[in-house]
């Protein structure tokens, strides 16, 4: 451990010397330097935290946060923006892994609990948070003076976003602890499936809310058909991509990790450009979710070929640098100013969410007759929150430019807290049920 502390000290001292010593050096942002430093520092800090029983990813996130623009100032927000493509690549990689981790045989075995948990937690958390925000709406400055309908609509937006969770954090913890077993399968399957369901649920809720907030005349439900079509297309493309990956494993012996990363990049850019093109040229709002494509591709390789194990093993070989970079970037992108502004209501939401997830998962487990060991600890695995929630919040701001930023401030504060608490809780849960293998 001493060696890691020395390495960390060397990296920190070098960065301090380069950035703060007043040398007349190249003033341009240097994303390569930031990425290299983050990899080394986050790894060392992650290891130190693992020594005291905390998950490594908390170390990665905290490294990104503390080395960044708010504390040690080793890099600026614009340098992090320049590295945002790394985040996209990592997300695509994690989505491939998430799909690959879903085995049909396992899902079939625990299908009933999965359905119960998804429905139970969604119902309890959504209803609970909506009612909570509605009941304290007079205390929230930007909701004061609004009509009850609008308050209820905004509360529902809070409710739906708190339902979202983070499969990426779950996968990183599973990879770190090498966990295996029914608890792991359940948490992972529910988290991944929720990623798909939350997008649909969000679309429905936000459209209903728009009627109340913007007092529209009627509700146009055609978007649901479009949404289902988008998801179907994403799954189809994912299936085809998965088959192509199988072909690559079988026939072409190329650098596998490179191919997967290149494909992830291509899928993300292709989806973005297609959406932009359809919107700008044909005025059609049609967006394919790239992460769904990657997830479906991973799922296809795992379940419709003989190379599922091979695929995951190859992905696992290169996964650590990707996880470290991704979570450290997530930490670096955290906005402390927002946390300062929205921490109180954020804290209330976090506390309420924890209690509601606990209640929801406890009863879902009881009703689906999973073993007590699992249903008493399942809630610990459902706290993590990250990418999808942030994406949905961006959409909220876009649709409601007047009140959207205020909603975003409070919820980002809550998400930041969940990003730290979630992995710790999940690792603790895995240890409690005895499914870690480190």
């Amino acid at each position, binding site marked *: 451990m001493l060696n890691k502390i020395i390495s960390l000290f060397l990296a920190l001292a070098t960065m301090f010397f380069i950035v703060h010593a007043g040398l007349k050096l190249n003033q341009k942002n240097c994303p390569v330097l930031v*990425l290299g*430093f983050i990899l080394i520092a986050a*790894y060392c800090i992650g290891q130190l935290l693992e020594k005291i029983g905390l998950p490594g990813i908390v170390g990665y996130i905290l490294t990104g946060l503390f080395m960044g623009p708010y504390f040690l100032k080793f890099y600026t927000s614009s340098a992090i923006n320049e590295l945002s493509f790394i985040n996209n690549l990592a997300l695509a990689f994690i989505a491939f892994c998430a799909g690959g981790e879903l085995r049909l045989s396992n899902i079939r075995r625990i299908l009933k609990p999965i359905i119960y948990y998804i429905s139970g937690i969604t119902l309890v958390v959504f209803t609970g948070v909506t009612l909570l925000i509605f009941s304290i709406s007079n205390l929230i400055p930007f909701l004061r003076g609004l009509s009850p309908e609008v308050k209820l609509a905004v509360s529902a937006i809070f409710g739906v976003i708190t339902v979202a969770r983070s499969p990426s954090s779950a996968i990183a913890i599973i990879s770190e602890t090498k966990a295996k077993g029914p608890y792991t399968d359940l948490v992972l399957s529910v988290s991944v499936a929720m990623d798909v369901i939350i997008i649909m649920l969000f679309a429905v809720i936000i459209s209903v809310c728009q009627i109340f907030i913007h007092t529209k005349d009627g509700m146009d439900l055609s978007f649901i058909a479009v949404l289902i079509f988008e998801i179907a297309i994403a799954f189809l493309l994912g299936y085809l991509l998965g088959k192509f990956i199988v072909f690559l494993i079988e026939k072409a012996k*190329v*650098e596998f990790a490179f191919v997967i990363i290149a494909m992830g990049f291509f899928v993300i850019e292709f989806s973005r450009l297609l959406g932009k093109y359809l919107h700008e040229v044909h005025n059609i709002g049609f967006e394919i979710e790239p992460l769904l494509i990657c997830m479906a591709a991973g799922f296809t390789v795992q379940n419709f070929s003989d190379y599922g194990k091979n695929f995951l093993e190859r992905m696992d*070989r290169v996964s650590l640098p990707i996880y470290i970079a991704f979570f450290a970037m997530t930490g670096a992108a955290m906005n402390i100013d927002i946390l300062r502004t929205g921490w109180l209501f954020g804290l209330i939401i976090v506390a309420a969410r924890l209690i509601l997830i606990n209640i929801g998962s406890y009863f879902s487990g009881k009703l689906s007759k999973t073993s007590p060991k699992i249903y008493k600890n399942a809630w610990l695995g459902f706290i993590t929150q990250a990418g999808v929630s942030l994406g949905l919040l961006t959409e909220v701001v876009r649709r409601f430019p007047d009140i959207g930023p205020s909603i975003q401030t409070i919820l980002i504060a809550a998400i930041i807290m969940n990003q730290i608490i979630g992995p710790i809780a999940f690792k603790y849960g895995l240890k409690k049920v005895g499914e870690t293998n480190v």
Partner: protein
Amino acid sequence: MRLLLSVVVILVIALLGSRLTFLNRRLPLGFKNILFTGAEYIFIGVILGRMGLNLIDARSLNNLEPFIIFGLCWIGFLFGLQFEFRQLKNLPRFYFSISAIQAFITFLIVSFAVYLSFRALFSIPKNTLLIMAITLGSVASCTAQSALAIVSNNYQFENRKLLALLRYISSVDGIFALGFFTIAIWIMPGVNNADFSLARSLRWFILSISLGILSALILITLSKTKFSQQEFLVFLIGTVLFCGGLASKANSSPLVIGFICGTITANFCRHRLRALATIIHSEKSIYIILLIIIGASWSFKLGYIVLITGIYFLTRTIGKVIGTFTATRIFRTEFYTPPALGLGLLSEGGLTIAIIINFKLLYPSLSDYLVTIIILSLFVNELISPKFILYQLKGFKKITKR
């Protein structure tokens, strides 16, 4: 869109190319050597670049800068990793002196000739001219092993010692090339500093060396405890990125600093071979990407530059011959060395390209001439070098084709 297309195209070509380049084909030795070194990817770059389809335009190239920094540092690091002093001692020590003399004489002749030619034909400021001449001298002094590998793969030799000497020189003289290139940057560290200042240059030199050493120290310390292969990958990628980033921040060469980091790692890290095994597979892909990038960024205009290319090619050949002749006469080997042995050291290959890309990174406005000279001479040298090697070895012992 353009960046997406360019990245995808480059990656696909690099990945497939890393498989195809080393396939056996029934071709004349020179062409085989070109395919072996992957020089054909320069043409692909030209087609994709500003002289062709403009798919990889100037903006895309600019956006690829972080990757170029990483790629150069990775190559420098890998090159340095191969210099374990204990292994170098396995061959006679004066081999190193022969390599040094050969590289130094070639460097001097080429730098001098190129300096005079540019001065006579172009109006370029003195300092700039000096940097360009030294850089060309440095790339001229290094030799690629590809032609020797092609020849020894296709022929059997009775005199293995002479071949071993050529191999040794070609594997070692890159150190001197990097050293000479460091001198070039030392004169003008950073494109904005047009005038020479000894204090600034010394400060830059010490800083650059220290950054390479520091990066290596981090890697060595990290790898002192027990670690998994996944963790080792984090150490290697993290260190190379950090090292390349530091070089870029200090207006220094990622290639040179990566080399320093690699050499220190090779000699003080217990896991040298593991590091080599982990990263060597990616070398081909990174190298191909650099070749495509140099092709794409090439801007060729017919003019005096072709004449200077001819001068460069000629003086390099003369430098190699005189350098090797002088060195083998000062340090006599126990076996006969032909007087024109230097003709066996014409292949230019990978490090040359890396140095020129690094030059382009540091001094973008000065690089067009140098890129033209290197690309043209590289093709000629790769084409003729196997024949010249055979010629040298043939004159001495009978060579039987396999």
